[in-house]
């Protein structure tokens, strides 16, 4: 039987969801019997393969123009898209920036902090443009399954993937794994 192909990426998050996924510990070897990881931050494949993957996993909020591009590409190439963590689900801690506004936050960071000398607000064409509103992933693409938690526990990842591998589509996780924190 062909292995299930998975691609993962992180947007404006903290990498904690990917860390929690690795916290499945030794079970990762068991998982590798059934799945193949394509692009992810821990592999050197940069983008989901054009022919598509079975499962796409995104952590982190939508905070700049590049995040929008990544989310859209993942959506186009993943048959089933999972948003993991509070940031991808609700915007998370990054969305606290909505309370003060992006311009004020940029001024504080690059012009006003006590350690900065002769600051300037970065604006190169190489950089994504910070958005005025930070949001969850579903503000720009359709999400098939949300797994909240900061981060979701390793068992939540393992449960969701096990269900998908068994041919079942988890719509909501069991209460003990469906945590907002």
């Amino acid at each position: 039987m062909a292995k299930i192909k998975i691609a993962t990426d992180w947007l404006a998050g903290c990498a904690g969801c990917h860390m929690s996924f690795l916290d499945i510990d030794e079970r990762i070897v068991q998982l590798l019997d059934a799945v193949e990881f394509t692009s992810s931050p821990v592999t050197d494949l940069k983008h989901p393969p054009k022919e598509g993957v079975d499962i796409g996993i995104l952590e982190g909020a939508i905070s700049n123009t590049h995040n929008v591009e990544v989310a859209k590409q993942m959506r186009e190439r993943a048959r089933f898209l999972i948003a993991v963590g509070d940031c991808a689900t609700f915007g998370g801690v990054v969305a606290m920036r909505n309370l003060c506004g992006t311009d004020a936050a940029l001024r504080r960071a690059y012009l006003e902090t006590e350690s900065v000398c002769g600051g300037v607000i970065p604006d190169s064409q190489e950089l994504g443009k910070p958005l005025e509103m930070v949001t969850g992933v579903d503000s720009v693409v359709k999400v098939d399954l949300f797994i909240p938690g900061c981060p979701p526990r390793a068992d939540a990842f393992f449960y969701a993937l096990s269900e998908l591998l068994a041919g079942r589509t988890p719509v909501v996780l069991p209460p003990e794994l469906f945590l907002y924190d």
Partner: protein
Amino acid sequence: MSARKITIEPVTRIEGHGRVTIHLNEEGQVEETFFHVDEFRGLEKFCEGRPYFEMPQITQRICGICPVSHHLAASKACDAVARLEPPRPAKLLRELIHMGQLVQSHGMHFFHLAAPDLLLGFDADPAVRNVFGIIRANPELALKAVSLRRFGQQVIERLGGKRVHPNFAVAGGVNGPLSDKDRTEIAAELKAMTGIAGEAIAIAKNWLESNQSIAEAFASFPSSYMGLVDSEGGLQLYDGEIRVKDAAGNFVAQFRPEHYLAHVAEHVEPWSFLKFPYYRKLGFPEGTYRVGPLGRLNVIDRIGTPMAQAEFLQYRQINGGRPIEGSLYYHYARMIEALYCLERIDELLGDPEIMSRDLRSVPSEVKVPGQGVGVIEAPRGTLFHDYSTDEDGLLTRVNLIVATGNNNWAMHTASGLVARAFVDGNKLSEGMLNRVEAAIRCYDPCLSCSTHAIGQMPLVVTLVGADGSVLDRISR
């Protein structure tokens, strides 16, 4: 204006996303290289107005890889804001959770992120040059790597309730004791974990010795160095004074963390959201310095635990006692530190006060107008948190200088040196570009911490000759 540009995006097998642009001249030679860190979050502004005691929980969301570092640096800053001195048992427990984090972070970086280059080769097929490739190639070693990381994460979980973003330190101390059961279970695994750290050290050393000319030349450059030291100049990861040495190993300065603004300043470039810290008196970029395992081992005089000290004495001989400049030596230094952390866990568990219930100093009054600096050695280097509050304890000012930020200029320099040495714009190979990424990987950058990640453009580089013919094309 350069003739052609190569974009490596995102740099992978690092923590967070970065992008490198390599600018080539008409002859296909590398002219200039930039290490861009994209995205920005803005904690220094959006935390204003919030209660200071929320910071140990909020700021650890800066990073899920070393959340404990932010959790503890924030708690130390909160101690200072509220003018509280945590009881000694609380400090021991904070150091214990910190050691757990360093073990997991160093172990994960070495085995999961760096080792694919060392064990499988810089030119190995990118489809297998990753931790899953290691699992297939050497399952026994891979399982040891998984267990070292699991051990560190479990230390965090036992104290803080969960592995990522634990809830443990508070202003004035910690919120719970270590149980007998947990002490016994942590201790029971120490010998095996020390063995795995020793194996990692052997892998790093053997690789560096077998590839000595590469190791000495690869992203090797002079810089200053920074790290915390104890009163005897020994390695300190939880608390101490900040020491700076220059490129020749001469003592430059040693200062208390709360005086950091007199010594550390930050420069901003328009092409990166990550700022460039430097030693203020030397200016930018002359005053840029390196932190993290290599930086720390270049400033200290000794390590206070026996096995790590024995390894440190060997390490120090590599450059005749002078600072070691080659970026690849970070990997060796990192695992010497992991060994130290495991030995230090043993010492901490053996301290009679580790089981004490005297865990927190409580404020004598509610009003807390104050200012406080918390500094810690995060896995990637010196981490600064600086808060001011009004009399209701609401934050009026926040400044953060994160570990990876301190290495920003070094990563920019290292990737540029490797690009010049290895990238031939007339005949590109995937392995050439992987070496540029490997130069950045040495620093184990946590770009999640430092401001944070970016989006993607496919890495497809097409080289076109003067006659319009396609000379070369690579993609990944």
